[in-house]
């Protein structure tokens, strides 16, 4: 009898545990996965967290799992997740990498969602980039213009005025590059370019000089336009900058920014995100932001939000709600006030932002200048082959610098190889 009671008790306990574990998932919150490289970015990361908090407040029982993936391996992570049929519900991608996912049909067309909510995207900066095969597959989160930050103390010490042209910029960079302790190693650089962050970043750094020389990789119809006198001039400028020792070489973006922020570099051409680093640097009080001497300023689309095409409809609605929240005028404004970014929405009220971010008008000015000239880092017609194209350009440029080749010959080689890549 005793044994029978024991067995019954054991059976009841097992059944209870099984029932509870069965009920578990049904009672749990709905979780949306959101992977980003910006989770802990100064300003921008906080803005994402505030949007998530607001979304969760508006959607009780729904949680957003916000996870960081390093930018350097971000595309690999997303490719693997999509290939394994496990994409995050909220898809955050750089504007030069979403095309492959869109081309594979993995991103939900957003036109019906926009139409349903009556959202007008007219004037939304960079939104045209999000159109793929005639459909809107993402929402542009950030469109930016490059600015020049300079260390006023260094320029003053060298008796140099703030440069307004490429020649002045080069002269200022040369005058401020110094071996301060005479050990044969340069301790203070005139400027700094990242050359270790991969081909895409390498091209971005080069583009400052190429655009100023009046050149670009393709025209608005997608034809390759590398073999031109303007491009030869642009390549010559890049070669001069890299060979004259005014920039440290083989450095990652974060290292270059840190050098600048800590007062070991006189000038830096960069996007709005530089502000987060300079605010934490030891030379913070000496740093001033200005319009870049290279015009039009480099700029363009930065990152996008999208949703996978094959998640359940109820999840799609939640993801759309989140995207929509980030597009509201309130969050577009806080994108500026918290992150120091230029919001893409034409309805964003950015008045008074300069009180907390003094250089904000410069950011807006360069963003508009870049937008008006239709500047973007991803060349039209080469979106799908951007990685291959950028690697080819980087290699040919490195060859030009290492083997001291004539930029005119290099431009010819690049033209031919780019045409071959495009097919």
């Amino acid at each position: 009898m005793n044994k029978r009671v024991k067995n019954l008790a054991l059976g009841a306990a097992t059944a209870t545990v099984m029932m509870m574990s069965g009920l578990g998932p049904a009672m749990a919150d709905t979780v949306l996965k959101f992977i980003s490289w910006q989770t802990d970015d100064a300003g921008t990361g906080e803005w994402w967290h505030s949007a998530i908090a607001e979304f969760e407040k508006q959607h009780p029982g729904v949680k957003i799992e916000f996870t960081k993936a390093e930018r350097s391996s971000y595309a690999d992570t997303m490719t693997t997740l999509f290939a394994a049929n496990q994409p995050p519900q909220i898809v955050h991608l750089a504007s030069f990498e979403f095309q492959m996912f869109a081309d594979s049909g993995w991103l939900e067309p957003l036109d019906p969602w926009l139409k349903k909510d009556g959202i007008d995207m007219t004037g939304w900066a960079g939104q045209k980039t999000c159109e793929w095969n005639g459909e809107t597959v993402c929402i542009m989160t950030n469109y930016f213009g490059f600015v020049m930050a300079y260390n006023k103390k260094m320029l003053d010490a060298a008796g140099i005025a703030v440069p307004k042209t490429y020649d002045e910029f080069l002269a200022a960079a040369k005058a401020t590059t110094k071996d301060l302790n005479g050990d044969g190693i340069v301790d203070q650089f005139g400027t700094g370019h990242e050359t270790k962050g991969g081909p895409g970043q390498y091209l971005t750094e080069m583009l400052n000089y190429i655009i100023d020389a009046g050149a670009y990789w393709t025209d608005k119809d997608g034809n390759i336009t590398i073999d031109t006198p303007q491009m030869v001039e642009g390549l010559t400028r890049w070669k001069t900058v890299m060979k004259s020792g005014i920039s440290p070489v083989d450095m990652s973006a974060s290292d270059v920014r840190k050098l600048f922020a800590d007062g070991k570099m006189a000038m830096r051409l960069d996007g709005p995100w530089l502000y987060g680093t300079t605010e934490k640097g030891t030379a913070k009080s000496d740093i001033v932001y200005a319009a870049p001497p290279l015009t039009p300023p480099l700029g363009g689309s930065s990152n996008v939000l999208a949703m996978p095409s094959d998640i359940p409809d109820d999840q799609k609605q939640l993801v759309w709600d989140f995207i929509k929240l980030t597009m509201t005028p309130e969050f577009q404004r806080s994108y500026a006030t918290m992150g120091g970014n230029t919001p893409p929405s034409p309805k964003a009220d950015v008045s008074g932002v300069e009180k907390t971010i003094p250089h904000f008008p410069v950011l807006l000015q360069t963003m508009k200048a870049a937008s008006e000239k239709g500047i973007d880092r991803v060349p039209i017609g080469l979106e799908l082959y951007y990685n291959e194209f950028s690697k080819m350009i980087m290699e040919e440029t490195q060859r030009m610098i290492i083997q001291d080749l004539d930029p005119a010959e290099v431009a010819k080689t690049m033209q031919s190889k780019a045409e071959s890549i495009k097919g």
Partner: protein
Amino acid sequence: MTDTVRAGRGKFFDLARPSRQHLLGYILIAPAVLMVAAIIVWPLILAIDLSFQQVKIPRLGGASRPFSLNNYTWLFSSEEFWLACWVTFKLVVVVTAGSVAVGLSTALLANNRFKGRTVARLGIALPWAVPEIIAVVIFAWMFDTSFGLFGWLAIQLGFSDQMIPWVSSSTAAFWAVAITMVWKGFPFVSIMCLAGLQSIPSDYYAAAKVDGASVFQRFRWITMPLLMPVLGVTLVLTLLWVFRDFSIIKVLTGGGPLRSTQTLSIMTYDQAFQYHNFGRAAAVGVLTLVICIIASLLMLGRRSKSIY
């Protein structure tokens, strides 16, 4: 249930019976076999299948593309592939030779009796214990073109009048990778050789000494032949490590500049994750596997002839 049936069932499952002992072995090894099949054999089959399809990004459970030899045709006609083969070959030769030279030397040293031998042995094993990615990041700092230790040393010692562009010069980048790999790889050779050296009976050396054999002769005719079984296996394992190593090159140079450090493993990664050509990447991977198998067979065959 009757006692007869119970007894019969007990007999059937009696794995202690000599005739059924092999069954116990199979049962015990089954989980490991299944695990290996799941994490190695299955992906390998998938990779081979993928290498015969023209596919950009595959999707798990997605429909297969038609059979095609295009990936292999592209590969054999690609300059990039042959360059990657040449770089891999150079790296395998340099790093394996370097690791064996340093590893064997340190093993011979650590096999002697001297004060501080334990500390020396620990020191030899240390690079092996350091996680690869941490070691590479430290080396990346030391090879930094603007502020790195090696460039500074070169200037201080008068070898150079300016910092050495370790990562933006094709030759320097290759040697930066090779030096890092030798540093990371020699302890394994050293430990294996030390184990091999300690298994050689000291009587052989004593007898050779009596016969008037010099140090070099003892090394040539006793140490080396008796060490060959260990050294052969070590050589194969080191060679395979160099072949497949990815993180050292990726972190240090990313395969550049001008593909001077782009090995087959880096090329596989680039094709898959940079260019999104998973079919081509799978083809490079399969060919790398084939080359590794052939190299291992050749090395093991050579080793078997080298011992007494």
